[in-house]
């Protein structure tokens, strides 16, 4: 029996990195949205910066989801 420690380490590192990255980026997106909603209630205005921040972050997450689907569906390989 030989254990492929390199592969095991890779799985651990990639999973850890991907999870933390996606959740942090998504959290920033949620922060942007919260800012937009807060601004709307306070002065009725829109918060362009918050909006851009949310859009950018969610777009990045959507790209990761697309890559995930690419990995799942064998026809794409």
């Amino acid at each position: 029996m030989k254990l492929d420690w390199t592969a095991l380490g890779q799985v651990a590192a990639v999973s850890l990195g991907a999870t933390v990255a996606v959740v942090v980026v998504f959290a920033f997106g949620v922060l942007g949205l919260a800012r937009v909603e807060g601004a709307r209630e306070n002065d009725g205005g829109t918060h362009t910066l918050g909006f851009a921040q949310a859009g950018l972050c969610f777009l990045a997450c959507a790209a990761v989801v697309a890559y995930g689907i690419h990995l799942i569906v064998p026809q794409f390989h």
Partner: protein
Amino acid sequence: MDHITFLVAVVIVTALAFDFTNGFHDTANAMATSIATGALKPRTAVLIAGVLNIVGAFLSTEVAKTISGGIVDDTLVTPGMIFAGLVGAILWNLLTWLVGLPSSSSHALFGGLIGAVWVGAGAEGVHFTKVVEKVLIPALASPLVAGIAALIATYLAYRLTARARTDSVTKGFRAGQIASASLVSLAHGTNDAQKTMGIITLTLISAGALGHDAGPPVWVIASAGLAIGLGTYLGGWRIIRTMGKGLTEIQSPQGFAAETASTAVILTSAHLGFALSTTQVASGSILGAGLGRQLAEVRWGVAGRMVMAWLITLPAAALVGGVSAGAVRYGGNFGTVVVALVAVAVTAGIVLAARRNPVGAHNVNDTHEVSIKPTAPTTVGTAA
């Protein structure tokens, strides 16, 4: 179709029955946290999971080439042993469902096959080093990795959004959960429906109904996909309650972190060829997410019972598989019928026992305990 003997027909029906239990046993992996946080309504969640399971079954073209992934000697495996192994896996899946414990359907299947081959062909038919390599090591490593990833991600998510409006944060992460839970379901469909397709196809090949190296016929793909999809849609509500409510109280940022961690671990390991249990990964993620939020209570008693179930899943299914294989080997068709009848009777008994204290879409979030004893209806139930 004169190649389809009585035994082969029984194997196919049993394989589909296992696929069905696999579906409802594992709905929780993808959907438990989304249901617990209210990201998805219970009925909607199981519908999405069911449909994505069927889609996943049809998408996957790489049907398992071996029955067991090398943990038993496939050249020694007969349809009778496959039948006995499946019976062991089905009964263990049902029993753990009754007590609401998320155990691994893959381990139940492996265990059933190991027991059946051991009795049917002798201990040399079982590759024990492969068992350690393919089952034991991933079983230890994958929930740990998923748990640590979910823990760190949850901690950071709460730190980052600490000063933002709570309702916006909850809403945002709930929306994200829908995407992350759907990915888990899709990955599950491609993996687990495949296993059943592989078993049926190899049985047909061994019976001479299909040529060697033949792919699964369309009816096999369709019936396997449908069986797992229907099972998923039925929903293993008892297990959903344990995973969504029992281990820890889940909030939407935790749910998102847990599902993201599960997806990441499942996809990276599948990419690198590790077989692992979706159930154990998802449970590890949920525990990690529970630890990552300050003041969140993790019910270590429930977690301990769950880990115990993981440890005895393989030997317990092996025991049932072994006994069944003995009956099939020495009893022939008569033995097979007896095993099938006993299995149906036990199944009926378990379903009746579950009826005494049913858990369904209407009350899945009411409490965190799954009990077999009937309880007086309470009025304090608050749907989260």
